[in-house]
């Protein structure tokens, strides 16, 4: 076996061959699926808990506060303590609620973000499924989460929940367009929807540099639209604390609430990793074509570190949005999308197509 932190392909093949040599192929496949499922479950929990902690720390520093600092050194066990507290809380039964949908909703939200996470390339070879329509798959699956939010609002038998869910629906319907179109801009440049190929094409320069002006515009639009799509501030109308108590998850308690909470943070992670992969090269190190020495030095940094670094930076940007801007009103939200982002995006796609046609990109 050759374990190589720069390329996990041989490691994966070693596991695959090892399993196939001791059991029939069907069972080997089931075992592999189980292993990947457990790894993703652990990854999901760890990243989700860490992001909640990171958000609290980042917002504290932006407001000249200290943030959680009592549980463990620098408060790093704060979210674990919170999670244990949520696990032990009572699951309150809501009178006249639609029991089936009420219990189903958090699972739909969390499954949607799980499914989308499976298509993300973490490093070379560290990729659960490499679909040839990866981007399409992610767009399709990640917007399934809103079904869960709508169900949660509808089944709670609470007017605040319902208003929150309806707002979330209106928001997703409009901003999904911008997310799709801004990714389409890069697909025009890349000529493929497969994540592994998109990353491989950025070997001699990330798309944000290769596609220069239209790629930067597409990145900004994607950042704004995906912040809205994950229901984060300043677009958190669906759970606007000051207006709707907690929006669609008002009536949820205990572990069901924790599911919504985790899913929200994992959606943010997902969106940031899509942005990092499509615009900033994913796990691909920073390469400048022609500078061979510089490129070799950059190659020494493991791909996983590059991926995490880029994702963390974009997550930080989204946190900066949340803790800087006031919440939009619903009409301002729709104005921003339909009057500004969408026209800019459409013109931008034309611009990018023209650029690709004339070979004006790098």
């Amino acid at each position, binding site marked *: 076996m050759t374990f190589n932190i720069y390329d996990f392909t041989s490691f994966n093949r070693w596991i695959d061959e090892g399993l196939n040599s001791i059991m029939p192929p069907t069972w080997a496949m089931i075992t592999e699926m189980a292993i990947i499922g457990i790894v993703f479950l652990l990854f999901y929990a760890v990243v989700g808990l860490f992001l909640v902690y990171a958000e609290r720390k980042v917002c504290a520093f932006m407001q*000249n506060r*200290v943030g959680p600092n009592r549980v463990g050194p620098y408060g790093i066990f704060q979210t674990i303590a919170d999670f244990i507290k949520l696990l032990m809380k009572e699951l309150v039964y809501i009178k006249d609620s639609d029991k089936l949908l009420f219990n189903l909703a958090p699972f739909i939200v969390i499954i949607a973000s799980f499914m989308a996470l499976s298509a993300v390339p973490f490093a070379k070879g560290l990729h659960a499924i490499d679909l040839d329509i990866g981007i399409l798959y992610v767009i399709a699956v990640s917007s399934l989460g809103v079904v869960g939010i709508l169900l949660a609002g509808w089944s709670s038998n609470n007017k605040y929940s319902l208003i929150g869910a309806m707002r979330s629906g209106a928001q997703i319907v409009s901003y999904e367009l911008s997310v799709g179109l801004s990714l389409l801009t890069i697909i025009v440049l890349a000529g493929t929807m497969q994540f592994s190929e998109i990353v491989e094409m950025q070997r001699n320069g990330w798309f944000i540099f290769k596609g220069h002006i239209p790629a930067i515009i597409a990145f900004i639009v994607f950042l704004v639209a995906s912040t809205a799509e994950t229901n984060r501030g300043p677009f958190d109308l669906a759970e606007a604390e000051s207006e709707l108590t907690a929006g669609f998850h008002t009536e949820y308690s205990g572990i069901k609430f924790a599911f919504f909470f985790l899913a929200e943070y994992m959606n943010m992670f997902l969106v940031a990793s899509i942005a990092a992969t499509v615009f900033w090269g994913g796990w691909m190190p920073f390469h400048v074509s022609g500078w061979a020495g510089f490129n070799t030095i950059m190659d020494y940094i493991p791909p996983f570190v590059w991926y995490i670094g880029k994702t963390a930076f974009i997550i930080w940007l989204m946190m*900066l949005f949340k803790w800087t*801007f006031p919440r939009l009103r619903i009409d301002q939200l729709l104005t921003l999308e339909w009057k500004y982002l969408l026209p800019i995006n459409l013109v931008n796609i034309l611009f990018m197509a023209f650029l690709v046609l004339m070979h004006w990109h790098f």
Partner: protein
Amino acid sequence: MNSFFKYFSDIFHGVKSLLIGMSVTGRYFFSPGQIVTQQYPENRKNLQMFERFKGEVIMLHDGNNQHRCNGCGICENNCPNGSIEVIPVKVTGEDGKPKRIIDKHIYHLGMCTFCGLCVKNCPSNALGFGQEFEHAVFDRSKLTKVLNQPGSSIIKGVE
């Protein structure tokens, strides 16, 4: 054509003001020295409260154990919670006339909301706010305090 330019100038101004906001929070993020949170139990020894902090109502005494309170009772009348009781006594002054001075200025800390009406309305500025804030006691009768120190007298010329 005018609205056309307005559309783009709106975008430009919007982005500009957003960037200004982001630069403010970003600057705070990268300058942890500006953190204003007091880590209270750890820095108890050298914790400095602000001058405007309203910890408790005190009567200001000078070095000779003298205060400025003449027992007029305006603070008692102004207190919305009835947390101040002024008990005056009549004594005979040096010139032989009866004179009203303070015996006890009783302050119920447990009822006080720190509104500051007593301090503001005192005609001779006898009251002020102290910066002590650790008021927890095991018996609520300990929250009733006498503000004029034992043996204190009024500063000459204030009455």
